[in-house]
């Protein structure tokens, strides 16, 4: 009893001093508390702004990504000599961990590259740290520059409660698809339907080869493999509705169970490499690059590495579904460039965003070996990148992109990646898996 009283007293003491965390003690942080507005009516004249310094936080640090951003920054500064870009480059995981702190600080960057979904972008919008760009979208014609799904993924409700609808908050440069890389020497005629694909897996198995190279010790690759299958068993709108948490959307439907069943079946039949659960992501794709295995379910971020190691032996296709004419694939766009609500010159920031994604930028992206997310981008001349660009165009034509499942709730990455490991490890049945994930989702849906 004494202890309880002491605990209560301590609680009261601790609570008594100081306000709630996150409340504004200093009072000089008005920018963060004011509701950001969007009121620009016409294209601003950047040259007339005087000397401007734009602080930009991005994560374009790898090979081709670094080349394109350095080139475009140089061109932008040449076009507007009065604007100076102060670039802060961080690797993706570093950016994820520091972006919230940076955006909420007194000296926030003007342009921030933010990850889609409720975890980062949603939280930043909720805290009123980002400025909607609907007005600039109007004057620069951004709404026609991307397919609707890609625009949706960069949109958030102004109160941060939901994403996939609401106001546009940012623009993305590059497209991303999770598809199927295949070894052209072993698979001369890539399968066109899911049934053919499964037959090909069985054939590989019978011949003693690894059908699909997979490494899931890092947890996240499981999401890509599962969702790639899900995109074939479930209606694409049902997946989008779930990720964007539309009314009535659910993870626990027969279509979702079917995907869980199919991928468990693949595990049982030995369609993945043995011990995939203890294999790292990098060793798995490196084994594929060395010629072990027929298929690899992975994203376009591996294109450069695989092409370098395998040359013309590697091919890229979308996971075949029921209908070869309307493919559905997991995909999206690179992190969105957003404008901080405390940016002193939002006009200059918007001009920068436009410059990073216009027709000239698309050409720079292609030249540096990247896949532009924008419509009507030029296609690369040949090789694996051309196959990827072709798949991307096809997907956009039939509106076949479904968003990443881990965008759904702030904790969903942890929830679903752990659940998928339990499903693939046989710890959960397909039904238990979908019910469990749905429960986690409902917990969040009720608490918000």
């Amino acid at each position, binding site marked *: 009893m004494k202890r309880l009283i002491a605990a209560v007293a301590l*609680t009261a003491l601790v609570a008594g001093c100081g306000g*709630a965390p996150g409340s504004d003690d200093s009072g000089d942080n008005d920018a963060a508390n004011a509701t950001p507005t969007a009121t620009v009516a016409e294209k601003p004249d950047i040259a007339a702004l005087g000397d401007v310094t734009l602080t930009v936080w991005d994560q374009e640090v790898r090979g081709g990504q670094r080349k394109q951003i350095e080139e475009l920054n140089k061109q932008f500064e040449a076009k507007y000599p009065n604007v100076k870009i102060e670039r802060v480059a961080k690797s993706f995981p570093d950016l994820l961990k520091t972006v919230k702190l940076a955006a909420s600080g007194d000296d926030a960057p003007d342009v921030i590259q933010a990850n889609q979904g409720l975890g980062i972008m949603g*939280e930043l919008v909720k805290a009123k740290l980002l400025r909607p760009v609907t007005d600039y979208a109007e004057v620069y014609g951004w709404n026609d520059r991307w397919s609707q799904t890609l625009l949706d993924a960069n949109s958030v409700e102004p109160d941060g409660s939901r994403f996939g609808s609401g106001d546009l908050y940012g623009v993305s440069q590059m497209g991303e698809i999770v598809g199927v890389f295949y070894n052209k020497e072993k698979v001369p005629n890539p399968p066109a339907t899911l049934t053919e694909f499964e037959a090909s897996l069985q054939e590989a198995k019978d011949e003693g080869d690894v059908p699909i190279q997979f490494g899931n010790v890092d947890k996240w690759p499981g999401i890509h493999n599962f969702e790639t299958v899900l995109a074939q068993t479930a209606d694409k709108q049902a997946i989008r509705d779930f990720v964007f948490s539309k009314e009535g959307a659910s993870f626990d439907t027969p279509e979702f169970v079917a995907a869980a069943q199919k991928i468990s079946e693949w595990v049982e039949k030995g369609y993945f490499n043995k011990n995939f*659960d203890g294999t790292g992501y990098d*060793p798995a794709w490196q084994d594929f690059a060395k010629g072990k295995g027929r298929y690899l379910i992975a994203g376009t971020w591996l294109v450069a590495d695989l092409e370098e190691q395998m040359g013309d032996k590697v091919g890229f296709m979308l996971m075949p579904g029921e209908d070869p004419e309307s493919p559905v694939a997991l995909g999206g766009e690179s992190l969105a460039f957003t404008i901080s609500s405390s940016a002193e010159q939002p006009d200059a920031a918007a001009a920068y965003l436009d410059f990073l994604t216009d027709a000239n930028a698309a050409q720079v992206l292609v030249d540096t070996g990247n896949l532009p997310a924008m419509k009507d981008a030029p296609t690369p001349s040949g090789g694996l990148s051309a196959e990827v660009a072709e798949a991307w165009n096809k997907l956009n034509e039939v509106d076949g992109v479904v968003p990443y499942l881990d965008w759904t709730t702030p904790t969903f990455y*942890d929830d679903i990646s752990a659940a998928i490991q339990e499903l693939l490890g046989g710890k959960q049945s397909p039904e238990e898996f979908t019910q469990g994930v749905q429960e986690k989702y409902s917990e969040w849906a009720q608490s918000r």
Partner: protein
Amino acid sequence: MGAVPLGVAGEAGRGGGDRPPGEPRLVGYLYLLPAAVVFAAFVLYPLYNAARISLYDWDGLTVGTWTGLSNYADVFADEELRAAFLHSLILLFFYAVLPLLIGLLLAGVMARARVRGLALFRTILFLPQVIALVVVAVMWKMVYDPANGSLNRFLGWFGIEGKSWLGDFDLALPAVGLIGTWVYFGLAMVLLSAGVQKIPTSLYDAARVDGAGAVREFFVVTLPALRGEIAVSLTLTTIAALRNFDIVYITTGGGPGNATTVPAYQVFTRAFETGQVGSAAAVGIVLTAIVFVISLGINQLAERGT
């Protein structure tokens, strides 16, 4: 002091007066001040802040909502968090107990036999301690790789089929734990063998005269003499076990499922990835309390014995 006549005060100051020698003077606290300020600024204040945040539901950005002790209730009610604490207790065996046993064995051997090149062996065995834990974790992830890792290849020479060390729900936690054993047994060994060297050889001679064998000698002479070193070793490794983060983060990310998640990993993901800063602070405070209680217990046990 004001009421004391000047002369008297001056005399007391000069001659030492009626204050017995060695009695602490107020001025002593002044010498303590710089360290106390640093300690307060970098340990006490953050600790207080963590305690305060733990009483709120806070996402790290917007204004937090007061929730009282519910974050603490979650530590016991939330299955994932409960599992995390259970795992850290299991890891105690691998990080603290096992290294101690191996260290004792090695120290016992060294006490009896004077091995040539002892310093070299000791350096090699201590080496894991010197390597950054991140490097250790990356290295072991390669060792444990099912297809190309050296462990499974080694087993393959003997016709033993390799396992999916970090991917199997039953093997992952012990596999992570053994990395800790590898890191910390060197520390235990160095502490204990230093202790062994200060045991007078006459004790061993006496034991031998009385007809004690190697085993009896170890239990009668070596073990009791090492009580202090054992306490130090256990305290250090226990703390390392309970706050273990880097190895789990790099090798398994808490997986498969949640089979290897630990409190420090939960603190990290909750605070920096999923926007549950209040809950992260509560886990941190509970973890601090547990570390405190366990190390207090170890030291009490060690002191009671002497």
